[in-house]
């Protein structure tokens, strides 16, 4: 019972790191980016190549995965995404679906269509027991890393100069521009950071979620659930939503395996009908 809770929390934390970048682009910048999973997949594959083929230590590969995805995200933002920010939602959807299709086919071409796993170091494998709760070492690591990231993220958004600039740029980009904030630059950096986080999540999650070229499609709905259910007015909303989703999904698959993903989708639709702005948003800001 508590083991399931633990696994669910680990899964939820992972989802949060994967989706937090999307919470910013979708929630704050109001851009429907269905291709977020592609950046996560990029990070995952970078780790796989580094660890499995080049023999880079697992922990050294994590920051590299973050940087690689961030750079890819930055380049894409500057080259492509900037042109689509102002377009209608239909265009954004078409554009990002196109990117997803391209990334899926490209990953298939480069890495093959099979599922790959990261070789995690020996001391992270297996599990130990505390008071009868089976705790997987790797999952514990994920909880620790993701927990630290969450705190750091909250701190950056709430307490740093960059965070307040970002919030200003989002609330009213014209006034922010008038105050001398380089809004384009702030958006680009945020996008790159969000992509980097997704890449890191992909690297960490390759072991648990499994990594294959259809990753962006498979988890797109999960990311979207986190963001829409969590609401977008704060970072705590998506955090709680991903914990709920993680625990719900793990518990649902364990206790009622026949229902499969029904629980998740049904809950999502009910929540969206009940509160279109998300469960944890205080009020519709726009």
């Amino acid at each position: 019972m508590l083991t399931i809770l633990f696994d669910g929390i680990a899964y939820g934390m992972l989802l949060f790191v994967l989706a937090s970048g999307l919470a910013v682009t979708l929630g704050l910048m109001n851009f429907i980016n269905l291709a977020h999973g592609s950046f996560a997949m990029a990070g995952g594959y970078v780790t796989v190549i580094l660890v499995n083929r080049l023999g880079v230590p697992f922990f050294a590969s994590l920051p590299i995965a973050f940087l690689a995805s961030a750079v890819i995200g930055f380049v894409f933002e500057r080259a492509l995404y900037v042109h689509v920010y102002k377009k209608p939602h239909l265009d954004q959807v078409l554009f990002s679906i196109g990117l997803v299709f391209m990334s899926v086919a490209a990953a298939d071409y480069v890495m093959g269509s099979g599922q790959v796993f990261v070789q995690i170091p020996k001391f992270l494998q297996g599990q130990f027991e505390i008071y009868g709760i089976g705790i997987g070492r790797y999952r514990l690591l994920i909880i620790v890393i993701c927990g630290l990231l969450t705190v750091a993220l909250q701190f950056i958004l709430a307490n740093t100069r960059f965070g307040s600039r970002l919030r200003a740029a989002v609330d009213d980009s014209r006034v922010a521009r008038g105050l001398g904030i380089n809004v384009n630059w702030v958006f680009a950096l945020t996008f790159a950071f969000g992509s980097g986080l997704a890449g890191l999540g992909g690297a960490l999650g390759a072991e648990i979620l499994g990594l294959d070229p259809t990753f962006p499609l498979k988890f797109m709905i999960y990311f979207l659930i986190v963001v829409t259910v969590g609401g977008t007015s704060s970072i705590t909303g998506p955090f709680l939503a991903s914990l709920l989703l993680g625990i719900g999904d793990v518990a649902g698959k364990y206790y009622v395996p026949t229902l499969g993903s029904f629980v998740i989708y049904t809950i999502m639709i009910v929540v969206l009908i009940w509160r279109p702005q998300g469960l944890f948003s205080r009020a519709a800001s726009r």
Partner: protein
Amino acid sequence: MLPSPISIRVATEWLSARARWQPLEVAFWIVAFAAIWLFPDRHLILTEIAWLGLFALSLDLILGYAGIISLGHAAFFGLGAYAAALLAKYEIINEPVLALLVAGLAAMALGFVTSFLVLRGSDLTRLMVTLGLALLLRELANRLGWLTGGADGLQGVSIKPVLGMFRFDMFGHTGYAYSLTVLFILFLIARRLVNSPFGLSLLSVKGNPLRASAIGISVDGRLIAIYTIAAGYAGIAGALLAQTTSFASLEVFSFDRSADLLLVLIIGGAGYLYGGLIGAIIFKFMQDYLSALTPQYWPFWIGLVLVVIVLVGRDRITSWTAPFRRIASHLSWRTLARRISAASGERR
């Protein structure tokens, strides 16, 4: 106060002018029906174009005319496909045309129930709800293995001859004639629909819901109605697929199908009825060509097309049809008759 007789007459004339058949339209359908005898060896792909065109027409009704973005239109398509396949497999309804109607009605029922979900919320909520619905149905079909065959698909379906006379053959001859006839009939209904006052009120809802409700149009009512009708169209398209291939699998619900459908409609241009049909023709031949070229990686090129279309601008992409549309609008029956009589006058 009732509108004056003159304004009623003006409005009626304007509406009937909109609804008048243009020569190019007539030519389009003549070519489509002539293909039954002209290209007997391409009937399989032409059948696919026919149901895809119908499916795109259905999306056009809600996206192009009512402005609802859907990422889960495959839900209705899949429901129709499974309904038709199940009806035939368990020999509940043996007559394909009747089964087609029942499948369409089933999809309409689902469309009516779910239309209330689509009414609320922003574009994003609509995307999520429609996407979630398609995923739910897919999961349902997967779980009900005893009924639907689960992940293996529904096999062993044999479709009886259409109207008891025309047997389905493996070359798709009957399939194409049948699909095209269904498409044509449904197209006529859709054409009547969008050229009616109801169709105009839909466009006004798409343009500005607040203003539309201010001039007395029931926005929710219109959206529910068109969503239900479009769902029925999608269901019939799915049923056509199931009947012409004697097979239904989980793939009918897939996200790729909904996404491809958006591409089909965007290529042809949303907001006019031929957009979906032209898009289906281009998409199928493009897919045929690309998948022959690179069997495994053709989604890449589909994705590239989507990205390029958005970056270049949808209006500019679909503007390639503008010259044709201009010709079509100039080319009315009267000018055609005048030219013919002028030509025959010269000959004399």
